[in-house]
Each structure stands twice: as structure tokens, then as C-alpha cells.
């Protein structure tokens, strides 16, 4: 058993972290938010070139031929920096939608009653209905967009639309919708993990700098213990997500999503608390992590469904 990152995996993660640090730092995040949270096409292409979407495609199909663990490591990094865009759907559609693997196409996802994120930016729409999946493009996609109504999105980084009933819209079937659902949940869990860790780091940094009562607030136990719980949540989510990526067992993925959702949401809330009044402002990034965490927790296997799956597993 060697449940540690290999050197190649570390290198992959470092590479993505460096790329994002250079191309999507804090200013870029704020600009994206103020700009309404659309998809930055240029960066999307760069991510494509870095293998972000094609990572799991076989080399014969122009991919990198790696597995879920590697994708999870990259998505953790994307989650850390709150990169906007339908990342999981585009990764899942690589191979099925032309240009998705290269980062030329943006693929949004529609699932049940949930609003659709980034619909106006989408070149294709992955429609999930139970265990079936299909892709709308061209005229069908345009028709869906024409019938859609924008939602004033809670998450300023993610524009949302309510779409009409899509059941009558023609699309290209995609194999194994159940697998897409699972993998979408896992990749989203990885983003949540990245966000949870980032919130923890931000809280610890602030607690180590801000002074009250003549001492750094991180020396106060009430604050310290909030931070410790954040680390514990993030580390438990990390092992759950990594293990699920290795085994790809459905119930393990459900557990990973549940714990990663909890870690991202609770860590963002605790981070807000540690930041005091500043945490309640638009200028601090805390609310961005919390809002995105709420959004991700609601989709790709939300708590109720995950808990039912995990309960059904108890024999």
C-alpha cells in the first residue's frame, strides 16, 4: 500500500499550481467576478493545452492517458483559486464533444431542476436525465438558450439560467450517464477540497497577523480551535476524495462528495468568522468561496442523495 502522491503526481500538481498562480491570481479572480463570472476563453484554452480536460482520454485519442487520481489533483488546484466555468462538465465531455479536450469548447451541464451555469458561454450542453445523458449543440442549444431566463446568481462567479423543459430537445446520446454523474461528483468534490484548504490557509494567515487585546488573535484559543477544526475537516475530505479517485467505487465517491461539501462550506463559514467584520465585506474573498461552495454542494450529488446512497450501502 502506497497511499501517498507519486513524484509524477506531485509534479503535475505543482505545474498546475504554477500555471494558475501566473494566470489566475487574485486580481484575475476579482476581475472575473466583477465581469459577471463568464468563462475566460484564453485561459480555458491554456488549461486545455495543459491537459486539464484531456487528462483521462487515451493517448490514441489525443489525450494524456492518466486516471481519476490525476484529474482530482488538478481539480483541487482549480478549486483553490475558484476558477469560474463548467470545469467538470467540460472534462467529462472531452472525447464526446469536439474541442472540449483542447479547451476550445465550453460544455455546460443541465441536471433536473437545477439552474444551468454558464449557459451563455456554452458551445454544448450536457443534459443528464436519470442515468441517461446526451449533448445538445447547434440549433437545439440555441433554442434552449432562447427559452432560458437568467437568474440573479448567488455566486457572483457563476452566471445561472433557468432553462425550459429540455426533454423534447434532440441531442447526441453519450454513453454511461451513471458514470458521468459519479465522476462529475468526484471532480466537484476535488474542487470543494481545494476551496476548503484555501479557506483554512486564509484563516490561519489572518489569525497570525491581526492583533486585538495586544496579541495576535491566533493566540486566542477560540480562534485557534476554529482553525484546527478547519484543518481536520479538510484532511478528512482529502483522504476521502483521494481514496475515491483510486477506487472509483460509487459509495466511496458519495462519501467523498458529502465530506468535501461539508469541508468547503463549513471552512468558508469559519474563515468568515475569523475575519470578523472584514469577513462580511465584498472585498474579502471569503464570501466568494462560501457562495461557490454552496453552489457546488447543491449539484452533482447533493447531501440527501449522497446520504441515501451511503445508507443503502450498509448491509
Amino acid at each position, binding site marked *: 500500500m*502506497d497511499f501517498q502522491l507519486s513524484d509524477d503526481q506531485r509534479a503535475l500538481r505543482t505545474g498546475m499550481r504554477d500555471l494558475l498562480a501566473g494566470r489566475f491570481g487574485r486580481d484575475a479572480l476579482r476581475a472575473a467576478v466583477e465581469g459577471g463570472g463568464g468563462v475566460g476563453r484564453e485561459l480555458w484554452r491554456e488549461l486545455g493545452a495543459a491537459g486539464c480536460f484531456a487528462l483521462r482520454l487515451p493517448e490514441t485519442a489525443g489525450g494524456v492517458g492518466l486516471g481519476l487520481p490525476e484529474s482530482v489533483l488538478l481539480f483541487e488546484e482549480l478549486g483553490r483559486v475558484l476558477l469560474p466555468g463548467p470545469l467538470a462538465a467540460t472534462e467529462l465531455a472531452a472525447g464526446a464533444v469536439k474541442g472540449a479536450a483542447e479547451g476550445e469548447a465550453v460544455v455546460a451541464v443541465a441536471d433536473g431542476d437545477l439552474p444551468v451555469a454558464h449557459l451563455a458561454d456554452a458551445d454544448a450542453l450536457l443534459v443528464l436525465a436519470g442515468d441517461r445523458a446526451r449533448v445538445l449543440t447547434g440549433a437545439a442549444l440555441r433554442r434552449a438558450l432562447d427559452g432560458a431566463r437568467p437568474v440573479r446568481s448567488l455566486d457572483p462567479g457563476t452566471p445561472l439560467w433557468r432553462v425550459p423543459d429540455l426533454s423534447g430537445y434532440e441531442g447526441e446520446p453519450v454513453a454511461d450517464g451513471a458514470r458521468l454523474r459519479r465522476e462529475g461528483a468526484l471532480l466537484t468534490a476535488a474542487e470543494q477540497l481545494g476551496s476548503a484548504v484555501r479557506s483554512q490557509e486564509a484563516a*490561519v494567515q489572518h489569525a497570525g497577523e491581526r492583533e486585538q487585546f495586544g496579541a495576535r488573535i491566533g*493566540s486566542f484559543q477560540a480562534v*485557534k480551535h476554529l482553525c*484546527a477544526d478547519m484543518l*481536520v475537516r479538510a484532511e*478528512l475530505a482529502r483522504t476521502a476524495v483521494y481514496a475515491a479517485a483510486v477506487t472509483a467505487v460509487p459509495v466511496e465517491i458519495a462519501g*467523498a462528495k458529502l465530506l468535501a461539501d461539508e469541508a468547503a462550506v463549513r471552512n468558508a463559514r469559519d474563515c468568515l468568522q475569523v475575519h470578523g467584520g472584514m469577513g462580511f465585506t465584498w472585498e474579502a474573498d471569503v464570501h466568494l468561496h462560501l457562495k461557490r461552495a454552496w453552489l457546488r454542494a447543491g449539484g452533482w450529488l447533493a447531501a440527501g442523495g449522497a*446520504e441515501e446512497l451511503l445508507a443503502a450501502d450498509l448491509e
Partner: protein
Amino acid sequence: MDLAYTPQEEAFRARLREWLAAVLPGLPAKPDPGDWPGRRAYDAGWQRLLYDAGYAGLHWPADAGGRGATPTQHLIFLEETERAGAPYVGANFVGLLHAGPTVAAEGTPEQRARWLPPVLRGDEMWCQGFSEPGAGSDLAALRTRAVRDGDAYVVSGQKIWTSHAEVADWCELLVRTDPEAPKHRGISWLAMRMDSPGVTVRPLRTLAGSTEFAEMFLDEVRVPVSHRVGAENDGWRVTMVTLSFERGTAFVGEVVACRRTLAALAAEARRTGRWDDAVLRRRLGRLNAEFRALWRLTQWNVSEAQATGGVPGTGGSVFKLRYSHARQELYEAAAEVLGAGDALDLDREWVRDRLSSLSYTIAAGTSQIQRNIVAERILGLPKGR
């Protein structure tokens, strides 16, 4: 990153499984929890079986009489023994899991030769005399003093919460050998015979009604200087070694047990129809995620220890914090599965376990102390006052 076991590890697992299947049916019946001599005999018997089969001190270094097994093999051992329903370490806990490893790591060749083999054979049992009435979380505030008199220390003071004191032969004892030094500097780590003149053990009754631990009064007890492990006044460092063993691996097998209990809870809820309650069902589902993840966290920590080849690290605190909480949640759910009436019945095992789970956030360092450790040693936050 993989979770696969090597063929050697799987072969080890298969042999162990076979051995357990052969030996477990022949075990005597479990003694009554209040019958301490019976418990001691039972635990000693099990340890002897392990010893004869070559499974005693699996994870101890070979030159300390152990098998020098890898952390992963130790994990497999805990997993398989727990899964097969084999006895737990019981009264051998301190000797096998922390006093022994501490002596192995810090003791002289004579001390290792004297103390380690009887622990492995189950002939001698140890207890831990660290806590005092005035020194619990603040362990270094301990006051039990040891004054040098020729080739012996004369020890006087009081210890408390000493688990298994009633049946122990030896005690890993922390004493103050220099009252003038700063509090962390004047401590020494001694091995004291429990039948020494001047040792009085008074059992304390726990909230579960049992006598798991005791008060220990020490009145001019003579302990040979040769029974000191580590240098005089260097006991705090030795203690840190002990505590890292205590927190590092001590709870691993229990996670497997909790997963089994959770499955039994679900089966019971199905039988009684309580499973139809979605709130309860989902609560059990969430606990499934929790214990699965805790198991994975254990594997992660073990794999990390294997990679770095060292003493278990601070990962133990992360694990202990979450595990102790999850265990309490498990038995809260159990009470709900049982229903209001049965949850009051002390003849139900889950009710007794619910009571004992209350100690998990206290013993071996409270959750508050673990949070301090995580915040200060892992996150690097400033020390508090």
C-alpha cells in the same frame, strides 16, 4: 497513490486469517467486566497465543523481540483481528502500545532484556501513571516527587485515572526529580513495580459503573535508579515519545469495529422498521461516510509513516479529534435505533458503549488539547497563554 496491498502483504493477511479461524473458536468465554483477575488471565492468555504463533509485538523492532513488521502489516493485523472478533489488547494496552515501544526506543540493553520479553509473552502487564489530581491536561505540572537515596529513588505523591492499575505488574511513572528546574525540565520516566511497599491502589468507579481506572497513592516507594528510562530530568522528552505512540496507532482497530457496529445498527433499524425514518437513515448514511473516511485517513497516516520511517506524527491528533467525535455520534445514533425504552437498558451492549464513548474526547489528551496541538504544531499559530 494506490490502495492496493502487495502480494506479500496479502499472503500475510491470508496466513493470519487462517490462524485466527483456527484459534478463535477454542478461546474461553469472555470474563465479566467487573472480574479483574479473570480479565487479566483472559488478556494474558490471548497474548500468549499471539506470542506462540509469532504475532506478538508485530510492529516492534526485531532487536526488541518484535517482528519488525511494516506499518502496513500492523494495519492488516489490526484489521483482521478486529474483523474476526478476536480479543482486544485489554490490560496489555499500555505495555504493548506505549510503555514497550518507549523502552524499545529509549531503554538500555539491560532494560530491554528485562522488560520487553514478558510484555510480549503476556506475563507482565503495565499501567500508565502520568496524570495527577493537579496535572491532567497540564501534565508537566506533575508534583509526585522522587528523591535520590543511594541507588534508589524514594517516590511520594499521588496519581489518578490509572487504567488497569489493579492488575498491573509495572507502572510507567512520571516523577519530578528536580523541583527547582522549569516544569518541563525536572521530570524523569521510571518503571515502578506495582507490588512495591508504599503503593496503594484505590479503584475509582466510572460513570459506566465499572472500575476501569484507579487512584494510586505513593508513600516513600523505593524505585531502583536503574529503572529510570532516559537520563535524569530528561523524562519529558521520553514522555513525548510515549504519547506519540499512544496517539499514533492505538485506535486503528477500533475504526473497523465502528464500521461493524454501524452495519449492525442499520440491520437492526431495518428489522424494527425505524429504517423508514429518512432522518435516521441519512444520519447512518453520513456516519458511513465518516467511518469510511477515517479508515482512509488511517491508511494515509500509516502510508506516510511507512514512507518517512519514523515515529507516528501529528496526523494522530487529526485522527483522534475526528474519531472520538464520530464514535460518540455513532452511539447517539445507536440510542435512536434502539428507541427511547431500550436506550435505557444497561443490558444492551450499545447502551454501555454509549457510556464508554464519552471518555474518548477526554482520555489520551482531551479534544481541546488536540486542537491546540493541531493549531500550534501543524498550522503554526502562536502559542497561547
